């Protein structure tokens, strides 16, 4: 199992988009992929063409005292997908405090009868909670997503200075950064991107994902940009990211 944790530096920097596209490309390359949505905003499902009204998900199942894994889907491309499910704030608090024990994620993943060498992609919320800290610790690699904006830069600097959670050096070592939503015509975006690169050096993944209408349109079509506009620069950039990932694991 290769566990990949995708986390935005802050919310709405495009983590679920990256998860969807990376999983799609990996499965196109005949890899087994499980996408596990750990983000309470429950948006990952939109990239996998789920109905707007469909609320089902593993968290909802747990709240309703059902087997959580019955919320699992398999897309026609072969991607296995576990949506979070729509739950209320109260239910979420309850879930995090009562149902999720310290090693919950590890236990559940090992319970799943997944083929060996499956890529487990965890869509992790940018806020720290029991789920996201577990995901960060459990993963083999953390992809942290930055937007070339001033707040993102500031959050990033803070998080580096505190070495993210509890000064855990092992997390710092396995986390890599990627720039998403780089608006090509914006000078400030390009400048911040360069600053980020100079700040993060080797920890920066050498792929930038540019802001592209195609990405927005593909989400409106409830699919990934790699299938919506396979020849767009965004699709190429996601493919480069996947190649980087695979070579990182082969290293």
């Amino acid at each position: 199992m290769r566990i990949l944790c995708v986390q935005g530096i802050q919310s709405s920097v495009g983590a679920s988009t990256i998860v969807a596209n990376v999983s799609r490309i990996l499965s196109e390359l005949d890899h087994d992929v499980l996408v596990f949505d750990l983000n309470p905003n429950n948006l990952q499902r939109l990239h996998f063409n789920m109905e707007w009204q469909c609320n089902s998900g593993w968290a909802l199942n747990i709240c309703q005292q059902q087997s959580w894994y019955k919320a699992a889907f398999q897309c026609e491309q072969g991607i296995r997908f576990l949506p979070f499910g729509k739950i209320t704030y109260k239910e979420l608090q309850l879930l995090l405090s009562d149902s999720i024990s310290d090693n919950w994620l590890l236990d559940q993943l090992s319970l799943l009868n997944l083929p060996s060498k499956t890529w487990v992609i965890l869509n992790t919320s940018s806020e720290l909670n029991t789920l996201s800290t577990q995901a960060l610790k459990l993963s083999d690699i953390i992809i942290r997503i930055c937007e070339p904006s001033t707040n993102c830069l500031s959050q990033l600097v803070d998080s580096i200075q505190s070495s993210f959670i509890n000064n855990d050096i092992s997390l710092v070592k396995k986390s890599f950064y990627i720039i998403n939503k780089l608006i090509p015509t914006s000078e400030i975006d390009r400048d911040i991107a360069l600053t980020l690169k100079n700040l993060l050096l080797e920890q920066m993944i050498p792929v930038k994902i540019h802001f592209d209408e195609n990405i927005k349109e593909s989400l409106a079509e409830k699919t990934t940009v790699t299938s919506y506009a396979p020849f767009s620069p965004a699709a190429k950039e996601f493919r480069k990211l996947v190649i980087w990932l695979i070579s990182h694991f082969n290293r």
Partner: protein
Amino acid sequence: MLTKDYFNKDTQLSIDTKLRYLIIQSNLAKDWLVFKKTVLGDKTPLFGTLVGIIFFFFCHEEQRKKSSQTIKKYFPHINFSESTPANVIRFILQIVWLSTVQSNRTSKSLINLDFIYTILTFIKMIIFFPVKKILSPARSILSRIETSERIYNNKFEIRIYLLFTIILAAICISIPFTLSAQITFSLLLLFVAVTAYSVPGRLPRLLLLTLSLTISSRYLWWRYSFTLNIDNTMDVVFGIILMFAETYAWLILVLGFFQIIWPLDRKPIPLPEDTSLWPSVDIFIPTYNEPLDIVKTTTFAALDIDWPKDKLNVFILDDGNRLAFKVFATEVNAGYITRDNNIHAKAGNINQALKVTTGDYIAIFDCDHVPVRSFLQVTMGSFLADQKLALVQTPHHFYSPDPFERNLSNFKKVPNENHLFYSIVQSGNDLWNAAFFCGSCSVLKRNPLLEIGGIATETVTEDAHTALRLHRKGYSSAYLNIIQAAGLATESLSAHIGQRIRWARGMAQIFRIDNPLFGKGLSVVQRLCYTNAMIHFFGGIPRLIFLLAPLGFLFFHSYLIYAPAVEILFYAAPMLIHANIANSYIQGKYRHSFWAEIYESVLAWYIARPTTMALISPKTGKFNVTVKGGLVKSDFFDLSISKPYLSLITLNVLGIVAAVYRYFLGPSDEQSTIILNFVWTLYNLILLGGAISVAQETKQIRMRQRVEINTEIIVIKQSGHLVSATMCDFSSSGLGLKIDHKIANINRNEIIHVLIPRGDREFIFPARITNTNNDYIGVVFDNLTIQQQIDLSECTYSRADAWIFWDQNFSHDKPISSIKAIIKVGFHGYVILFKMLPPYVTKPFLLLSSASYFIKTLLPKNITDNTIEYKDA
């Protein structure tokens, strides 16, 4: 426990996605579409589709995937996307051919050429068996000696070897042989040369040079001692003239070998980490009458050179005193220097600038030579390492074809004259500390330059003269063979010849007024290198003598070489062969055999007079500036340039007539000599035909030459959609892009942005689509700001790796195919001449030739490779 089965609930798909999957899953339809696309393109012609359907659906299932390759293999000459009657005929003929002759051939029938081929191979094997047996051990010995190094500490030992060598050489050169002995001798040496040719390394190089020297010296010795017929006055006069030309050729050969014996492949020296130790540099861009557009590109690139900004000053040296240039210079924050006269042209211009600037070093770029960003990083290290160094020169590289390359259409296929000089000759000079200044793309140290009184103004080639003076003062020079700037070649043949005339005159002037053989301060080898560079330009007259020499015998019965034809053959031929082997070995990738003969033949007439004039009176003659950046609007034949060649051709054709006449009607004992001179004349005619080919000017339509490149970029549409594209070519005004047009949905006149990545950075340029042609779109930049123009230069011309892979397309020289190419070029020249005859003469011939060409396309083609693999299908 969760099992795999739980994952089988399908997510819902939209209708069109489902439909698409239905179609795609149907393999047959998919394969057919692929087949149709590869064989027919986007069209649906009747005939092609019919053949395609039959071919595709009658294929076995396993072979279907490869059927498009199969059909292309069996019908290589048929374009199925066009339903012309000719294609139908081709198809039927090919079917008949394949089912009768071709199929029979594989099953060994009467028309089996393989048998004859086998016999020929067998005979060849028998002949070459002993040669091969000796060849491989000889090779291994050579390569073994190469690896074993020996250091001679004892000077006495070396002297003994030297003495021995000289005695041996004297014997080899001067001992008279009978004809059979001469044949044996030259064959033996030839065998050694052929062996050495295939072994890479220094030793084979030296061996080949020695052999060639020996044989050519022997030839010259033989010429001087035995072949002058002193009984006949005309023979003596013509013979001495030819001997003069031959002696010159021999001298050039010897000096040339000496010059390139051991090219010093100098590497850049890194600069210190601390940038405060880096010296200040002034960049001079001298201009006189060139358009501002050209100077702009160079200035932007110069401003962008990677060097501490407070230590880099760019100056435009405008000798044309133009207001627009002054305005531009202020706009981009570059210096502007002008003067109220034009005395001493470029040299005077630079000297004037020297007075008002202060930088420690001076980099000079002709206004069309665009430097790359790394120029100073690469060159300056050498200066800091060696205080005596006064000059670093880098190659002049041209990204546009020179007239030879354009008119012979061999740009980027055959290396040009320039390439040889900057790859081998300058590197060779560098070993002897004699690499000289070439006027541009170089850095000079200010103090030594001031010490010799600035750039030399006495001659029209101020660059070489300046270097000579620096060397005389004991300063050294360096040559770095890394392309760090690129420029425009001259456009027209007349301008090109004009430039060479200037060089030739300037070199002759230096030879006359500041002869490198005499005077103070130079080492012996430096003197020889400079001498070679100068007398190289005196080649005009000897070349003309060679072009006319056989006529002396054919017209006037004069025995220029008073010896039997066979003897001439066995003295001269080995000399030519050895010289070519040695040159091909050393110059290999940088100059292809025989092409130089054409270049020299074209220039011969034009440099003969100015060099002679300059030798007699070095002060006369005016300075002409090399014109660059113009257009050749349409194809035309430069008649005025080719007049001398036309008269030479006429003489040689008459020579051919005389030879045929004398062969059949003259005395029979002269026949062998006639054949020899006939072949010589024929060779001269090929060279002259080549000269005619060059004079046929091919049009050049773009004002700014586009440079080929292959980089991924992104096009940003105004809608916010991004389109990935490949940049295929660039100029300072626009780009050529490749895009899948159907996906991109890009229209003419659309306003876009272009994003070009360079390293970690990305640059954005506003642009407009000017033309769309299938997947190729042309883009022109719109209103770039100054900073954007600098950035653009950084992404295009002045990328540090812009010219690194330039010469990878050049293959190593293959003398035989070079001969073929030369003959083709020569023949082409006569076709050009023929076409200029009145139409009533040429029309029937042209019709005949196009008809025969058409019929040739109808004929069935042989399929050489009958095996088609179906393994992967």
